[in-house]
């Protein structure tokens, strides 16, 4: 599973990091500017949960 954060859409709601801190981290201003990454095995559910929580639809999940 791969995650792409459309960082231009991120508005700092922080819901991704709140729901799934093991997957998503925020910069010092509270925005998600993570480059595309592969989800660690076993963290798939958390990755999906965090993506679904984004009010801006800024997190794209690509399933294998």
């Amino acid at each position, binding site marked *: 599973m791969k995650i792409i954060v459309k960082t231009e859409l991120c*508005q*700092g*709601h*922080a*819901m991704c*990091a*709140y729901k799934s801190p093991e997957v998503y981290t*925020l910069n*010092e*201003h*509270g*925005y998600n500017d993570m480059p595309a990454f592969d989800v660690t095995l076993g963290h798939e559910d958390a990755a999906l949960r965090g993506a*679904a*929580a*984004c*009010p*801006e639809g800024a997190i794209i999940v690509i399933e294998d």
Partner: protein
Amino acid sequence: MNPTATIPAHVDPALVRDFDFYNVPGDKTDPNAAWTALQAGPRIFYTPRNGGHWVVTRGEDVATCLRDYTRFSSNPSSIPREFTPPIVPPLSIDPPDHRAYRNMLALTFSPRNVAKMEAEIRALTVELIEGFRARGECEFTGEFAFHMPIQVFMRLTNLPDTDRAMLLGLTEDRMRNADFQAGLAASMKLQSYIADIVQQRRAQPGDDLLSHIATATIERDGGRQLTMDELAPMGLLLLLAGLDTVASTLGLIASFLTRNPAYTQILLNDRTLIPGAIEELVRSHGVPNLARRVIADMEYQGIFMKGDDMVLVPVHLHGQDPEQFDTPAHIDFLRQKPHAGFGVGEHRCVGSHLARLELRIFLEEWLDRIGEFTLAPGKQPVYASGAVLSVLNLPLVWNR
């Protein structure tokens, strides 16, 4: 009190309603019913009240107005448009300039930084609740809902506690005085108070939010400090946005729990539901009525809007739109769908993480110390509409 403007020639007469958002029929007793009633009418309508403006009533349009800064500007940031200073950073600044102003606040209000304030906010919350707990009753708005967030604001900004009553009084006049001129006068007094403090802090900075915005360099014009014309309205915005919206939300949540004690029981039985409860209660009790200005002549949802037209954007109606949320009137603490209660887009509430923390600490400490509570016998809450939907009076009782 809210002068009626002439209806502009471009507005379709079929879309005109006499609607004063400071005084909506039925809003004093049931603001949710009063506002959601708009969704039975036209998707978008025009009212001559408050200088004349459009009102969007569907969630999709609320989100579009908030997100699409190429069609809807945030300047001016209030209806009527004369009610705010010409520049209120970052609220009234459109992208691309907006982010530089917002970043001045984003550090202070980031989830990481806000988390450091938990112990202090909890201590002041406990002190407030313990101040009236043994009485078995309180007037929630006047004794708690305003005092908690203003104490948080005064600590963030290191203002003397002796100014608290004065700031609360002026804020009340600014937000809810039916006399437009009185509201404007209160706004000017608050700005001049903040301007004085900011000037002192620029000369002798401390480790507080006002010192920070007074001395920080903004990434504009090659890097500069903010001018007083920017700082005073920005300080006023921090006070009003941090105080009134939180107080209103606290009041609406407490009022909801008096009407639905089963939900108090749910939380008493399982505190892990509190964060989900906060999201759901913010979703269903959105408080701000935001303002946008149409940038240029356009057709929107089949309606001709002229450049410079104002649009009222009631966040409450996003959370109550059945096209956005299944059975929106039903409260479900496990609901997962993201909501727009703190807004969406570039101007999303920068203080939302602090607000969430305040709401969580309130519920935790209130449930621990007071538990179940009800409306005082024979009393009714009093609500009000306006720029922020609010609870003016909420008399509560509980077993001591």
